[in-house]
């Protein structure tokens, strides 16, 4: 670890104006693409897992191009934890809501009682809700795995 840090400091790999500028330009588009992959999972390859990983990779890119501490200003640990827990709760909550509304667990057509869209449309929309939950959870877990492994749990400058 120390050796790596000395080596990177000697080669000045840490700070590069070109990398920082290009990452700064790329991040919004990467995040937009991640959201697109999540919400377009009904019509094209993709879905919660893939989109969540793409969303998470944008924060990993920020942590690599700048240092991890300054990337934590853009996405704090607290916000990350809240998003991840929300994602997991959305999935389980939608499933439990189906059971509460009189159907089976994760039988989205039962949600027709709440907002009458029709059972078939609710099955489509229920998949969307669930995919959003998966996306949030996967994004948060990816980012927190990178933060913890990259900085040995200290949340300092990291790699």
């Amino acid at each position: 670890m120390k050796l790596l840090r000395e080596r990177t400091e000697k080669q000045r790999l840490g700070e590069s104006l070109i990398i920082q500028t290009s990452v700064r330009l790329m991040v919004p588009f990467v995040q937009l693409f991640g959201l697109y992959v999540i919400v377009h999972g009904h019509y094209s390859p993709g879905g919660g897992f893939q989109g969540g990983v793409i969303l998470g990779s944008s924060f990993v890119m920020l942590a690599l191009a700048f240092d991890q501490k300054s990337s934590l200003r853009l996405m704090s640990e607290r916000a990350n934890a809240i998003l991840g827990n929300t994602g997991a709760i959305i999935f389980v909550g939608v499933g439990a809501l189906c059971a509460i509304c009189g159907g089976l667990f994760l039988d989205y057509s039962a949600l027709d009682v709440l907002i009458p869209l029709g059972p078939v449309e609710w099955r489509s929309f229920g998949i969307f809700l669930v995919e959003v939950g998966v996306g949030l959870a996967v994004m948060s877990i990816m980012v927190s795995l990178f933060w913890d492994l990259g900085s040995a749990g200290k949340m300092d400058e990291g790699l």
Partner: protein
Amino acid sequence: MKALALLATLITGSILLYGTMDFPAWGDPQDPAAVYLSPYYIENAVRETHVPNLVTAILGDYRGYDTMFETVVIYCAGMVVVSVLRRSKNDRPENKT
């Protein structure tokens, strides 16, 4: 103790391998999944869920339970890594005398 663990692993592994001998052959058109399940999904998934992408329909609806626990597994993995690796400022080794 190590030998016991190895023995348990070997026995479990061989039982699992023995169990796979009853599986239908790879890509067999007569296996139950290909005879009943896949045609059902292909014929009914779009009508029943209005999702043109069959993979998403199966993953999110027919196999929602599976996907839910996939998410829970990833979530648990993340929580375990955080709880093992994350150090608060107070219990860094250099702060301990």
